[in-house]
C-alpha cells in the first residue's frame, strides 16, 4: 500500500474535519442548532395616536417583525397559529375586523381576502408569526388604509402624516445662535462633548430634509442629522463648548456658546440682593414645573423571559403588555398621566425596572402579572421585613419601599374596592415580589388569572377591558391621597 501523495493529505484532513464537525453538530442540542441570532435592533413606530417599538428578529439573515407586536398597539388583535398556518384577526378601534392569513415557509398570504406576496417567506417561531421587515410598509398600508413611510436602514416607520419637521436657522451675531425648530414641542436627550452638542430623539418622529449643513461661522461650524437604530440624532459642531435652551414652549431649541465657568471665589460667595445694581442672568428663569400624578405601569417579563405559559401559544408577557396598554388608555381617559415601563417585547432585568421606575418619579408604580392557575385578580402589596426598615435618609436597595408601605396598602385597597364593585373575584395579599421592594413610591402588583375554567379566557378583550377599567378607577381615585411628585 502506498502512502497518499502530499497533495492528497490536505484533502483527507478536510474530509476528516468535516466528519468531526458533522458528528459534533449532531451532538449539539436541537434547540441550539436551530437557535436564531437575536438582534439588538428594534423598529420605532410613530403613529398619530402612539409611539412604540418592536424588536427585530434575525431570520435567514434578514430582519423580521412579529405581526402581533406590530399591530397590537394599533387595535385589537387575535392571533391563532394552527400548525404551519397562521391566522390573525385585527380590528382598528370602531372598525370592522380584517383577517391576515399566512403559512410558515411560504411567501404568499392573504389580507382581507386579497392575495399578498412577501419578499421572503413568512415564519412561525414559538407560536408567533413573523414577517420580513421590508414587507411591513405594504402590510400596514393595506391594514390601515393610510400612507406608510418605512426607513429600513434607520429602523423607523411613520404611519399617516405623522412627522416632526426639523428646520435649522443660524442667526449670526456676537455670539451666533442656531435655532432648531419643530412643529410641536420636543424632549430630546442632550449630550455634550468638546466641540459638539448632540440631541437624541427617541420618541419624537423627527425628520429633516437636510443631512448636513456647514456654516461659515466663528462659533457654530455645522450640523448633521442622522437616523439609525430607531432614533434620530442632530449633532451640532462648534469651536467652543455649546449649550442648549428651549424656547417657544419646547418647539425651538436655541444652541449657543456655553458661558465660561464662574471664578472659584464667586462660587464660595453667598449671593446678596443689591438694590441699585441690576442683576445679570445668563438664562431666563425656568417656568416652575408643578407636581404631577404619574402612574407608571410595569408589564412584567418580556423578550426571552416569557413568564408563565398561559397556553403553549399565549405567554404571560403578551397578556400583561396588552393589559398594560389598556390600563394606560383607561387612565389617560380619566385625565391621569400614565407611562409604560416597557411598550414592546423586550427583556428588562428586575434591577433595571426599579432603576427606571425610581428615575421616573411616579406617584404610583404598578406591576402587572398573569397566571395560568387560580381564578380572578390578586392584588399584592410589598412585604418588607420590619427588622430591615431603615429610617436613614440613604435607603437600602432591598428595603427602599419601607417608607411607602402604608400608601401602597391604601392604593391596593382602592383597587380592590373597584374590583369588588365590578364583581371581579379578588384578594389582597402581601408578597416579597421584586422589584416592588426597591421602588421609592407607593407600589402594588396585580396578577390576573382566567375568569373561568377555560384558561384561554384570560386573554379575552372583554375581560382585560373590565380589569383595566377597575384598576384605572382604583388608581385614579388615589389622586390627592398620595403625594404628587415634581418631575
Amino acid at each position, binding site marked *: 500500500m502506498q502512502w497518499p501523495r502530499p497533495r492528497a493529505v490536505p484533502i483527507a484532513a478536510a474530509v476528516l474535519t468535516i*466528519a468531526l464537525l458533522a458528528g459534533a453538530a449532531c451532538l449539539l442540542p436541537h434547540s441550539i442548532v436551530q437557535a436564531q441570532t437575536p438582534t439588538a435592533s428594534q423598529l420605532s413606530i410613530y403613529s398619530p395616536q402612539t409611539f412604540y417599538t418592536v424588536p427585530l428578529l434575525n431570520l435567514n439573515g434578514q430582519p423580521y417583525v412579529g405581526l402581533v407586536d406590530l399591530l397590537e398597539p394599533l387595535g385589537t388583535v387575535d392571533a391563532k397559529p394552527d400548525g404551519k398556518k397562521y391566522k390573525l384577526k385585527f380590528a382598528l378601534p370602531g372598525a370592522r375586523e380584517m383577517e391576515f392569513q399566512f403559512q410558515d415557509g411560504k411567501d404568499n398570504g392573504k389580507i382581507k381576502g386579497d392575495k399578498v406576496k412577501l419578499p421572503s417567506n413568512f415564519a412561525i417561531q414559538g407560536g408567533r408569526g413573523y414577517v420580513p421587515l421590508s414587507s411591513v410598509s405594504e402590510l400596514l398600508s393595506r391594514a390601515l388604509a393610510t400612507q406608510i413611510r418605512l426607513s429600513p436602514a434607520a429602523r423607523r416607520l411613520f404611519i399617516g402624516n405623522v412627522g416632526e419637521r426639523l428646520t435649522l436657522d443660524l442667526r449670526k451675531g456676537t455670539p451666533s445662535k442656531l435655532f432648531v425648530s419643530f412643529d410641536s414641542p420636543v424632549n430630546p436627550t442632550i449630550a455634550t462633548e468638546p466641540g459638539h452638542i448632540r440631541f437624541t430623539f427617541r420618541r419624537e418622529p423627527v425628520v429633516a430634509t437636510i443631512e448636513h449643513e456647514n456654516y461659515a461661522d466663528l462659533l457654530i461650524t455645522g450640523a448633521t442629522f442622522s437616523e439609525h437604530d430607531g432614533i434620530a440624532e442632530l449633532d451640532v459642531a462648534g469651536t467652543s463648548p455649546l449649550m442648549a435652551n428651549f424656547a417657544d414652549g419646547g418647539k425651538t431649541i436655541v444652541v449657543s456658546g456655553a458661558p465660561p465657568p464662574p471664578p472659584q471665589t464667586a462660587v464660595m460667595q453667598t449671593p446678596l440682593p443689591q438694590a441699585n445694581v441690576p442683576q445679570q442672568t445668563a438664562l431666563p428663569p425656568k417656568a416652575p414645573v408643578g407636581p404631577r400624578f404619574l402612574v407608571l405601569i410595569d408589564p412584567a417579563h418580556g423578550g426571552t423571559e416569557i413568564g408563565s405559559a398561559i397556553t403553549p401559544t399565549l405567554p404571560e408577557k403578551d397578556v400583561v403588555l396588552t393589559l398594560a396598554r389598556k390600563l394606560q388608555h383607561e387612565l389617560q381617559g380619566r385625565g391621569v398621566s400614565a407611562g409604560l415601563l416597557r411598550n414592546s417585547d423586550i427583556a428588562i432585568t428586575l434591577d433595571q425596572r426599579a432603576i427606571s421606575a425610581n428615575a421616573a418619579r411616579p406617584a404610583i408604580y404598578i406591576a402587572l402579572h398573569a397566571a395560568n392557575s387560580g381564578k380572578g385578580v390578586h392584588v399584592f402589596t410589598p412585604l418588607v421585613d420590619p427588622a430591615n426598615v431603615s429610617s436613614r435618609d440613604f435607603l437600602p436597595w432591598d428595603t427602599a419601599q419601607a417608607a411607602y408601605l402604608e400608601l401602597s396598602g391604601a392604593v391596593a385597597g382602592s383597587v380592590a374596592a373597584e374590583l369588588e364593585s365590578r364583581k371581579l373575584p379578588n*384578594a389582597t395579599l402581601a408578597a416579597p415580589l421584586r422589584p416592588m421592594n426597591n421602588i421609592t413610591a407607593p407600589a402594588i402588583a396585580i396578577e390576573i388569572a382566567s375568569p373561568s375554567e377555560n384558561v384561554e379566557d384570560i386573554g379575552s378583550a372583554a375581560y382585560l377591558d373590565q380589569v383595566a377599567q377597575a384598576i384605572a378607577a382604583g388608581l385614579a381615585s388615589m389622586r390627592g391621597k398620595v403625594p404628587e411628585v415634581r418631575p
Partner: protein
Amino acid sequence: MTRPIVLMFVALLLITAGLGYYAYHLKAKVAAEEQRLAQQSQVVVPPASGPTTLVALYIASDQEGGLRRSSVNVALPQERSERARAILRALIGAYLQPGSQHPIGAGSDVRDIFLMGSNTAVVDTNAAFADAHPSGVLAEELTIASMVTTLNANDPQINQVKILVDGKERDTLAGHADLRRFYRANGIGQLLKDTP
C-alpha cells in the same frame, strides 16, 4: 486519484456515517431519558420502618389562593433537621399526587435542611423543584408559604426559612417569588384559610 486515496476517502466516509449514526442514537437516548425523568412523578414516601407521628401539613390550593391544614402520619427520624426534611418531603409528596390542588414540578424534592441557630432553617431543594415549578406570583408564594408554615407548625422554634436550589441561591423560584430573602412564619397569616 490513486487507489489508497480512494480507500482512505471510503474509510473516512464510513467513519462519518458511523459517527452520525452514533450521535443520532445518543441524542434519541438522551431525549428519551429526559422525557422519562420529566414524566416520573416522584411521590415521596416516608421511611417504611419506625413508629409514625401525626404531623401538620399546610396544603396550598390554587383555586382558593390559600393554605389549609391537614394531618398525616409520617415516620420521623430522631435528628431535628432530618425530621424537618421528612416533613417537607411529605408535603412535596402531597403536591406530586395526581389531582393535587397545587401541582408542582415532577421530580421535586428536598435535598437537605440545615438548621442555623435555633430558629432558622435553610432548605436545599433540587433543581427540578425550581426548574419545573409553575410560574406565577401566587403559585410560587403559596409553595413557599406552605413550606414555611408547615415547618413552623411542627417545630415552632423554626420561624424563618431560606430556600436554596441545588445548594445555591437563586433570584426567584420560577420568575416571581424572591428566593434571595428569608421568609418569616409570622408574615404568612393572610394565606391561611383556616386556623390551626
